[in-house]
């Protein structure tokens, strides 16, 4: 009997041990199966979801809910959760599970599609928990610090302010995740729906799973880190390429907006630059809309498509050096200043949905913020480079313009040399003609029949001599001699002078000279030459009975003198070279008239432009600066004075 009893006891003991071994071997098999899925997970998010699914699957550990926390330095943050949000959803899920008898494999396959509605709500809940493990006395901090599992059978024994109580569990178990003997986070699981305490088997298996999962999570985080760094590297590389390829500012800025958004996996990116003390959006990239054009006002289309445009945090964060993560209008923003040296030239912003399923603080992690700051550093350099390049282009254009002018001047200088030769040939006969006419005129009375004719010869040769003087000397030694004078008076005299030529073409002359034209410093003889050349040019261009209109008016700090005619338009290629000496010779022309006009106007510090179009005719517009007494020194350009001074310097 005793033996029987003993035998019975032994058998019982063996059975129990056998059951234990079976349980252990079952647990081991289960664990191995779970680990095989975990090993195959492609990223951190899937890894974490598989862990939590294993914890909650009825087939494996069978907890109702599971929460996962990760440790970053000393900061422990809730990251993800799996489970129904309430008993109603629980019933639904479990009914579905029973009818479908889904295996772990199916559940894990569904992990890759993201969690359920309840999962999302629980994840939101767990992400509100974040604590400093060095400072907190929470059960969560202890679990991590002591690397020990804790089974809490009644949460009321925890401190009232313990963050773990926010998860609304009546009883729970939390186990640390450890890798290389260092804690990396914890898993918290409960049965709050079924209101059962965790069984020892559940706790045991959870401990083993957490132990193994620790290493896998750590590895996944490490891989994630490498992946991110690679991504950062290629992004920076792309931006650097942009810096090196001297592209224009606009392209550079939209490139930065696009790359930033793509690199940070955000919904969109915005580059704003400071203009006249205001932040103006310069480029917006949105994944859903693509690149959004910015109109001149800058903010208009942004306001419509992205409410972020006038987001106050953008201006608010400008003082800081680091990227900030903020929330507004249902979106999550990260904004960082673009700084150049000690100044800020603008901001770089990326935005995303708040309710993102990705890891971290509502879409953006602190790592993201750090990377955005790095990105902003590169972007600022790229923008500055592009700005410099634009300025360079403007300078080049300016130099080209100067070069064009120089070319003109050189031609004129050369013209001066040639003209000296011509002068000799012309002046001598002119002197003889005029000289004899004067001589003869002196010997006859005013009432002599030839007196008038001789007067005409005398005055005409005088005029020719004067023009000769001006034209031949002007390239070398004839600086303008500006005196305070009335442009209208000069114009009237010129028109009188040319009245015969105007009459010969039966030209309709329309003259509109402003009454309120102030006097300016002008070399009257030279300016008359300009007017003669331009009116003569118009007379030559127009058809018989054509129209010539001459107007003067004051525009701000300038005087505008406009010569318009309704003749046929001047071909574009001729217009381009109109003011170059000898470059455009109309039949019978010297090819000098307009070149000389240009030079004289230039010497007066003014400009001369021409526009010629079909139906419009041709308009020459002279703009002369209004120079008052105090500005005299900065008045008409006397570029010959230097030559004169040099020559004087040679004198003995």
């Amino acid at each position, binding site marked *: 009997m005793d033996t029987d009893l003993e035998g019975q006891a032994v058998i019982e003991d063996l059975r129990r041990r056998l059951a234990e071994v079976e349980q252990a071997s079952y647990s081991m098999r289960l664990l191995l199966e779970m680990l095989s899925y975990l090993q195959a997970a492609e990223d951190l998010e899937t890894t974490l979801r598989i862990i939590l699914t294993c914890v909650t699957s009825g087939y494996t550990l069978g907890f109702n809910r599971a929460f996962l926390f990760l440790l970053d330095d000393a900061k422990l943050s809730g990251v993800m959760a799996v489970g129904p949000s309430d008993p109603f959803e629980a019933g639904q899920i479990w009914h579905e599970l029973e009818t479908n008898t889904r295996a772990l494999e199916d559940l894990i396959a569904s992990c890759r599609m993201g969690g359920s509605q309840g999962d999302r709500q629980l994840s939101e809940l767990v992400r509100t928990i974040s604590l400093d493990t060095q400072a907190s006395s929470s059960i969560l901090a202890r679990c991590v610090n002591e690397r020990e599992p804790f089974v809490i059978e009644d949460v009321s024994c925890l401190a009232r302010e313990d963050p773990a109580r926010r998860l609304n569990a009546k009883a729970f178990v939390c186990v640390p995740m450890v890798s290389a003997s260092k804690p990396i986070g914890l898993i918290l699981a409960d049965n709050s729906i079924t209101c059962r305490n965790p069984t020892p088997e559940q706790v045991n298996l959870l401990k083993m799973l957490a132990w193994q999962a620790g290493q896998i999570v750590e590895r996944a985080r490490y891989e994630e880190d490498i992946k991110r760094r690679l991504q950062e590297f290629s992004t920076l590389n792309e931006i650097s390429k942009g810096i090196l390829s001297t592209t224009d500012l606009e392209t550079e800025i939209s490139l930065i907006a696009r790359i930033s958004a793509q690199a940070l996996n955000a919904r969109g990116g915005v580059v704003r630059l400071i203009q006249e003390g205001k932040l103006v959006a310069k480029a917006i990239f949105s994944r859903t809309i693509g690149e959004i054009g910015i109109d001149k006002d800058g903010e208009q289309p942004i306001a419509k498509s992205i409410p972020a445009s006038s987001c106050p945090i953008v201006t608010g964060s400008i003082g800081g050096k680091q990227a900030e993560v903020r929330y507004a209008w249902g979106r999550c923003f990260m904004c960082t200043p673009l700084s150049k040296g000690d100044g800020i030239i603008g901001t770089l912003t990326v935005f995303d949905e708040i309710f993102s399923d990705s890891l971290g603080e509502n879409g953006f992690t602190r790592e993201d913020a750090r990377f955005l700051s790095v990105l902003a550093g590169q972007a600022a350099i790229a923008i500055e480079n592009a700005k410099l390049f634009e300025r360079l282009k403007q300078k080049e254009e300016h130099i080209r313009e100067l070069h064009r002018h120089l070319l003109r001047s050189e031609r004129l200088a050369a013209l001066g040399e040639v003209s000296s030769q011509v*002068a000799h040939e012309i002046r001598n006969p002119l002197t003889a003609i*005029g*000289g004899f006419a004067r*001589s003869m005129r002196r010997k006859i009375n005013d009432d002599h029949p030839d007196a008038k004719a001789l007067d005409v010869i*005398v005055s005409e040769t*005088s005029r020719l001599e004067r023009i000769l003087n001006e034209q*031949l000397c002007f390239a070398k030694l004839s600086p303008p001699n500006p005196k305070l004078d009335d442009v209208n008076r000069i114009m009237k005299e010129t028109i009188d002078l040319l009245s015969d030529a105007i009459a010969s073409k039966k030209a309709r002359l329309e003259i509109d000279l402003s009454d309120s034209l102030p006097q300016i410093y002008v070399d009257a003889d030279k300016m008359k030459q300009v007017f003669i050349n331009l009116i003569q040019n118009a007379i030559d261009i127009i058809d018989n009975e054509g129209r010539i209109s001459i107007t003067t008016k004051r525009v701000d700090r300038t005087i505008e003198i406009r010569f318009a005619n309704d003749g046929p338009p001047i071909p574009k290629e001729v217009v381009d070279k109109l003011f170059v000496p000898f470059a455009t010779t109309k039949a019978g022309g010297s090819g000098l008239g307009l070149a000389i006009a240009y030079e004289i106007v230039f010497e007066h510090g003014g400009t001369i432009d021409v526009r010629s179009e079909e139906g419009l005719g041709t308009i020459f517009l002279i703009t002369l600066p209004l120079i008052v007494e105090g500005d005299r020194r900065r008045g008409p350009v006397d570029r010959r004075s230097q030559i004169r001074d040099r020559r*004087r310097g040679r*004198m003995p």
Partner: protein
Amino acid sequence: MARILVVDDDSSLRMLYERELGDEGHDVTTAASGEDALKILENNQPDVVVLDIKMDGMDGLTVLDEIMKRDSTIPVILNTAYSTFKADFATWNADAYVVKSSDLSELKRTIDEILQAQ
């Protein structure tokens, strides 16, 4: 009344100067080249020389140097079509510089001034 030597390779101008300066009461001799002028100067002593600069053969400035070598007291007026040279006048040994013009009053005035100064 003064003896004036006009040196110019342009015959029309020689005619003009002869007539105009003659009308002023001067005794005008003309030379068509620098060489002729120097030949005339060997036997004559004019009160004033009116000298063109740009001439075929010997140019006016060489003639000027020659005259100065022989007798630096003879007054010389440079008379030229080149207004360009006016600025260089101070470096030459001439007494005056007049740009050719159909209006001869400047030349006549200059001659009178030089004669009065003597």
